[in-house]
């Protein structure tokens, strides 16, 4: 039998995610996969979310942020403060732990989003490298600031963040992020962002309030980064300011453009591969990072548009034809396939 398209579209990906998760758990029970691989996957998951967040600003809106680790740290600290200092596991019933965890992630995201909004408001009129420098400076300011706040451990960092985040949660949030980012890309907002990216002058002439849509993009991206940061904190259980340095930000840039910017699939592939690669290269001992660097260079030389070269997995695309599925009049205004 044939599954109706609109169903397959929404249901199959969920089944797919569940299947992959199930498979991993199966492999684990057979002892083929172990906590080592699962942890790599968890970091990869967090990196996928971060890369998607960066993709919204750099890939789709065509701005140039190189300080995204700053938002990540805000989310990480924001949520960790709640689960570690305010509502620590010892003081709340275990039944409340998960709600508190989710709440903390949400608040972490909000903090990042708020700051993203405030920093974006004055700075997003800057173009290209000038904006880049401001975002870089922003990241450094956050880092330097966190170092000086004693209650959250200052340079010592925060110890004993409860490890609430397991692979299942990471999977859920990655799926969720993909879902919302895809949706927003195929709405008025996403189109406005792409218009700004492709030709800012034309976008303005076509009545798009570029500043407004840039800020929306920036804030949205910051929120995702914040949630990702929160997850990170609850995977590692120890965070300190220098974890979120410029090095982290540039790693994210690498994930984004090596995977293929402006493509959700690209973010997945880039983050997944480049998180796993350094671990896969362990057998090279001290030559590991040398080879990693070479691989990176070669990838960019042979796939300048990134590994996926703009390809998008079916369930991460919404073709306008799908608008007519299950509609009163399901006849698609005919048009030949392009691309």
């Amino acid at each position, binding site marked *: 039998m044939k599954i109706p398209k609109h169903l397959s579209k929404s249901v199959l990906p969920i089944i797919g995610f569940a299947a992959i998760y199930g498979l991993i758990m199966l492999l684990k029970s057979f002892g083929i996969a172990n906590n080592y691989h699962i942890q790599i996957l968890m970091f990869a998951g967090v990196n996928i979310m971060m890369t998607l967040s960066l993709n919204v600003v750099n890939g789709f809106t065509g701005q140039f942020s190189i300080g995204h680790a700053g938002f990540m740290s805000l989310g990480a600290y924001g949520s960790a403060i709640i689960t570690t200092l305010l509502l620590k596991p010892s003081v709340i019933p275990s039944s409340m732990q998960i709600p508190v965890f989710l709440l903390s992630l949400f608040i972490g995201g909000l903090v990042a989003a708020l700051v993203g909004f405030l920093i974006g408001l004055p700075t997003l009129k800057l173009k290209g490298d000038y904006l880049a420098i401001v975002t870089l400076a922003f990241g450094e300011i956050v880092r330097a600031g966190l170092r000086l706040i004693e209650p959250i451990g200052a340079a010592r960092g925060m110890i004993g963040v409860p490890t609430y985040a397991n692979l299942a949660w990471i999977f859920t949030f990655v799926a969720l992020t993909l879902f919302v980012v895809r949706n927003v890309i195929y709405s008025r907002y996403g189109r406005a962002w792409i218009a700004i990216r492709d*030709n800012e002058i034309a976008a303005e*002439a076509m009545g798009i309030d570029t500043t407004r849509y840039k800020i929306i993009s920036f804030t949205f991206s910051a929120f995702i980064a914040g949630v990702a940061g929160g997850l990170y904190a609850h995977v590692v259980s120890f965070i300190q300011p220098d974890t979120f340095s410029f090095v982290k930000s540039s790693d994210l840039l690498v994930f984004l453009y090596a995977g293929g910017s402006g493509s959700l699939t690209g973010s997945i592939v880039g983050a997944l591969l480049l998180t796993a690669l350094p671990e896969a290269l362990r057998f090279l001992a001290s030559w590991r990072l040398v080879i990693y660097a070479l691989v990176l260079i070669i990838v960019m030389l042979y796939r300048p548009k990134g590994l996926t070269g703009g390809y998008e997995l079916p369930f991460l695309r919404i073709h306008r034809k799908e608008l007519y599925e299950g509609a009163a009049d399901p006849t698609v205004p005919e048009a030949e396939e392009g691309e």
Partner: protein
Amino acid sequence: MATILSIKNLTIKFGGLVAVEDFSADVQEGELLAIIGPNGAGKTTVFNMLTGIYKPTSGTIEMEGKNLIGLRPNQFAANGLARTFQNIRLFHNATVVDNIKMAYTLHSLEQFFPALLRTKSIVEQERELDIEVMRLLKIFNLDQQADLLSKNLPYGPQRKLEIVRAMMLKPKILLLDEPVAGMNAVEIDEIASLIRRIREKFNMTIILIEHHMNFVMPLADRIKVLDFGRTIAEGNPAEIQRNPKVIEAYLGGGYNAIA
């Protein structure tokens, strides 16, 4: 016929250089006003002022009595002034349909959080929009290329698409900046008929820049001639063709496009 756009003594200086001086015009509803003149006469500069890209040094732009000076380009668009560009400025990595949908952003009522979840109402709005866009594309028979990336369109259709995109803004005035630049005779006729269709179907007011005479003459109701930023002549096509100043300006400018 009512005046919808009244432009008074627009002047703009870059550094010391006067690019456009005392440009005035009252644009009547439904008319087609053409601005002609040799290269570097300041025609595009006038358009850039009329769409808020440049802020005039002095002068006023009033749209139905509302002063537009100092507004941002997107606000000019919101007030009903839609333009095309001399050097095509499409959203190159978006499909033809999306290019047009992007010009609808202004009018769209989609809210952010519903958009995140892609609620039913969003899907419906998107469908309505898609239907409307396809209807428009059909009118200008671009519907066959609906799902092509706009950068993969041939040159002619790209220019056409820019005009359709501007139409999607539902403007009160359409500003066309050299719509037939670099086109062959066949394509030129096509654009001409397209403009005629726009006028009768939507009763659209149009301001048009062009120095391609045998394209302008049959279309325009009224023509203004610019030279070195100054208006040297104004009138209906017949008058302009006879005007010695114009001929001087063109021949002086070594221009041979006069039919």
